[in-house]
């Protein structure tokens, strides 16, 4: 059941990307999408009644799948890198055009 919600969160982020016209809002939407994706990845490894994958003494066997967790660790840090670059770009856009609204950005001959 919660897996549906995580996929839905991913689509909330994609909806934000499609509908928002503010650069910071778009970066926030990207973050929401990545968060939904990370939650979905973890949920593919979840097993009912299983333990966290750490070997303590007298605690053997029946762990949840550790590989998705390793993948999400990598994905979170990559997300931080992308967000940092995106926000720095947003600051440069603001410096050049004086706005965060994409409708008000002129002078880059596209669309």
């Amino acid at each position: 059941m919660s897996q549906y919600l995580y996929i839905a969160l991913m689509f909330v982020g994609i909806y934000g990307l499609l509908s928002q016209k503010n650069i910071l809002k778009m970066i926030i939407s990207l973050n929401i999408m990545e968060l939904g994706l990370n939650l979905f990845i973890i949920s593919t490894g979840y097993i009912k009644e299983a333990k966290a994958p750490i070997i303590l003494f007298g605690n053997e066997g029946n762990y949840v799948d550790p590989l998705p967790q390793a993948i999400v660790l990598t994905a979170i840090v990559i997300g931080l890198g992308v967000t940092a670059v995106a926000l720095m770009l947003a600051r440069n856009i603001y410096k050049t055009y004086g706005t965060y609204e994409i409708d008000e950005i002129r002078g880059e001959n596209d669309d």
Partner: protein
Amino acid sequence: MIEIIGVITGALIIVFGILAVESKKLINSVVYLSLLSLLSVLSFIIMKAPDVAITEAVIGSGLVTFLFIITLMQDKKAGDKK
């Protein structure tokens, strides 16, 4: 029991996600994103992923929120969406 908590957290995450996207003020969006991140930490714990939970707590709700806020500080008017 733990599954029910998971579903409730998931539903709250969706609500905050929509609020973060649709909120009129940028600073509110950032705060909702931070809350979203904290709730996802809870979900990670429910799904038995302590490593991910710690990492998300430090990076997702800590550092990323700070980066957003310092970007917002650049423009005093940017708090209001036109």
